[in-house]
């Protein structure tokens, strides 16, 4: 009984752990896309210009 409980608790904590790591990675992904596709800094904009147009990210 206690063993199954411990197993359940550890399964839940692992799940939470996985969720936190996955969400962190996804936030990093959104940050990268945001910088490349949505930055208002003109040097970043010009560097990624053709990519922005090809991906139909809003451009000037």
């Amino acid at each position, binding site marked *: 009984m206690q063993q199954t409980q411990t197993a359940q608790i550890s399964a839940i904590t692992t799940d939470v752990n996985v969720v936190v790591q996955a*969400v962190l990675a996804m936030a990093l992904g959104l940050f990268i896309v945001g910088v490349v596709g*949505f930055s208002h800094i003109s*040097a970043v904009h010009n560097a990624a210009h053709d990519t922005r147009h090809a991906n139909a990210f809003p451009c000037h």
Partner: protein
Amino acid sequence: MSVFRSIVFSAALAGVITGAAITGAQMVGTIPLIQKSEVYERKAEAPAAVAPTAAAQPAHTHDHGAAAHSHEAEWEPAEGLQRNAFTTGANILTAIGFALLLAGVFALRGRTVSWREGLFWGLGGFVIFTAAPGLGLPPELPGMPVADLALRQTWWIGTACATAAGLGLLVFRKASWAAILGLGLIVLPHLIGAPQAPAGHTDVPEALSHSFVVAATLTSLLFWALLGVLTSVAFQRISRA
């Protein structure tokens, strides 16, 4: 290996391959059209650049709303190799960014995601990030009249979020209320409407901008299909290691 590292490694691997492959597709698809369009853009800018010298010096701002957009005095990559290198880099970074989202989702699934399932997740990405925002804001060539940049970005991001939530409800919730709410979320941004460009003249021929919409949409479809498959395969292998 920790989940985070598995996600990052598989996203980097899938992103580098997809970004490089899509640059090849853009070289034959979208980039020649962008370059053709820039000829018209420069022609339209040329008289505007001469005129304002007598008037009060215009503030050195990056006026996104104006049809005549000035590139001068801002750094931009040199034509040719440098420009293409930056485009390749930006494509790879974009691919890695989106692959992080995909691999994050695969990790959350908590079971093996096959390459075919990965393909469908990729197609979901195409609908969310290309098809839905593209309905209101179709891919544009340089030199076209456009609405305020920040407004378009806000609408674009809102549309992507609403479409993602709507698709999620449609696919993962079996109840009828979820289907209705999901469809509603997908339609809502288009009822609100994308920011419209002010009526303005453009020298860019209609046929050229039409070809660009087709080329950009197809390249993006290829991008997402490839990214979905490669990210699922890479994540499968790496997370098992």
